């Protein structure tokens, strides 16, 4: 066996499927979509099964998606996505660009009370258009600004797209 070969250096080992740690991670994919993956470790599952006297498979699991408001002063809205017990990742249609999001992983208690188990990091969706924020010291006359942005966007995006976005 060559000492630089995979067989020798990797020693026939495989990647673990999971890392034995409760975690919930949120990543932005684009202005409209987020991706999350999670792990609920065995000890946590067993504790929950013991506490609720329910099998893990019978838990009504859900992701609760929170969107922060425009100036990030608080969370303006939320929605839940029901998931099954054997999923470990999900694409979330967040819908609104240029916002911060945070999600929780949890389950429903009887009477649909959401019990949170894990909270993710905060992730931001990118902007998909020109910013509405204008610095008055750095401003072109309107007709000049239109000429500038029109030509840049003509190739990068279609002009229809930019005009639609400008309105």
């Amino acid at each position, binding site marked *: 066996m060559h*000492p630089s070969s995979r067989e020798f250096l990797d*020693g026939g080992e495989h990647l673990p499927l999971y890392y034995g740690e409760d975690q919930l*991670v949120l990543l932005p994919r684009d202005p409209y979509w987020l991706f999350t993956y999670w792990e609920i470790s065995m000890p946590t599952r067993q504790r929950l099964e013991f506490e609720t006297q329910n099998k893990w498979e019978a838990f009504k699991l859900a992701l609760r998606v929170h969107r922060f408001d425009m100036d990030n002063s608080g969370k303006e809205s939320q929605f839940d996505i029901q998931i099954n017990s054997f999923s470990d990742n999900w694409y979330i249609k967040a819908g609104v660009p240029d916002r911060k999001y945070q999600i929780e992983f949890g389950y429903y208690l009887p009477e649909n009370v959401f019990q949170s188990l894990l909270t993710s990091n905060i992730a931001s969706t990118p902007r998909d258009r020109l910013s509405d924020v204008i*610095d008055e010291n750095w401003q072109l006359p309107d007709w000049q600004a239109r000429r500038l942005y029109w030509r*840049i966007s003509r190739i*990068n995006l279609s002009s229809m797209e930019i005009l639609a976005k400008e309105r």
Partner: protein
Amino acid sequence: MVKGYLAFIFHSHLPYVRHPEHTQSLEEKWFFEAITECYIPFIRVFQGLEKDNVDYSATFSLSPTLLAMLEDSFLQERYVGYLSRLQLLAQKEEERTANDPAFSPLARMYRERLDYTSYIFNEKYGRRLVTAFRELLNGGHLELITSAATHGFLPLLGVQKEAIYAQIAAGVEYYEKIFGSIPRGIWLPECGYDPGFEEILGELGLHYYIMATHGVLYASPRPKYGIYSPILTPGGLAAFGRDPETSAQVWSAKEGYPGDYNYREFYRDIGYDLSLDYIGEFLHPNGLRSNTGFKYYSITGPENHKEPYNPQKALEKASEHAGNFLFNRQKQVEYYGEIMDRPPLVVAPYDSELFGHWWFEGPQWFDSLCRIISQNQDTIKMITPGKYLELGYPLQVSTPNASSWGDKGYNEVWLNGKNDWVYRHLHNAAKKMTALATNFPRAEDILKDALNQAARELLLAQSSDWPFIITSGTMDSYAKSRLMSHLIRFLKLERQIWENNIDISWLRHLEATDNLFPHLDYHLFQSLNETIAVEKDKLMGAV
């Protein structure tokens, strides 16, 4: 009078590929082809311009993995063998085509090019091409910049700030090791940007980075000059946005220059065209057909019928296209000049490897362009981002938009149903590496070696190339196995370190195989929170 500036950025990167365990490796051939068909032709063009006192400017980013491969003696040795096999093929080709008036001049052209390549690589620079780049850097026309250590796609590694810091800091340090100074700029891999890592970029002494068009265009507040002036970011760097017109002119499938019928056809290569009896010994021992670089036809037209390549006609076309490119830039800066109260700056970034390799005449085109810009007009001036910043125009403060130059403009190329599984592993490994680096702040001897090697394995796993190749679907089994091997090796090291049970002979083999960045220091992965805490303590002590 200068009415506008033009900044070419050539981004050069290959993933770290080095396989002593195989007698020949298809993946190492990417690197060898890039040396022969791209880097040396570019060096030749730049040196020719300097010799003729042409006042050109260009920026070349050399990714740290590419630099490490250029500096690796094993790969240098392999390249020498590869090149001499090609020279042998060139001799055979001259004999084979001796009586063919269309092909024999082409065979001679390839033989001469390979002889020149060998002269540059072996004789002039003693196998160290970085010396050529250092000379060009000192010449003052070429600006060199770095990239993240292993070209990690930073927006998706950013859950751990330490991973971003290590990628960038290791890239900056390796550049400094090779070129003796801190680079002014950085090429963010795939132009992947997220405002979350601004602070880190600012801390490392960098002055600027390059972005996708909408990274700057959609910055907030809205940039007054769009992408025709850089903006000043919260981290105190300048962000330069890619001009879409210059990229379309070169790369548009419909109107792009490289598709001109006079240019060389990439897809007709004697590695596919000639009988295996003849060409077999120059192909991979597994018998698969592959490119040799000997290509005798021009694009000719949309049909399968191809005419012999005519280098003279192609060269004339390249110079005609250079003229067309300049004309379009003149019109472009006139247009923006009417809107702006400063000369617009057009930033034109390209992947270097497409020049020469895929667009055979690309380096010649650039050569012609530099010459006509410096000789025949004074409306357009070539510049580098670093020199542009020295002009001292006040920059608008604005926060760039998260973006990339990949398909659809954001993270999807590196995060989709085919490759999303990699992030669980990459993030957990980075977390474990930070725990190690923070818990063993003063490691010595074997422990230190194991920690440094763990850092190398993690960096190698983080290359943007692996999820990219998995998305593109060709060679994806190679990308998967590379990614998994580096993670497996990392996890094994991590376990051995905690258990104080390091397998020394295995570690030495690992160091000899995954051997990039010999001076890499695992402390780069230390917790950023801890670092700040320590500094505050020191401050308190000083008071």
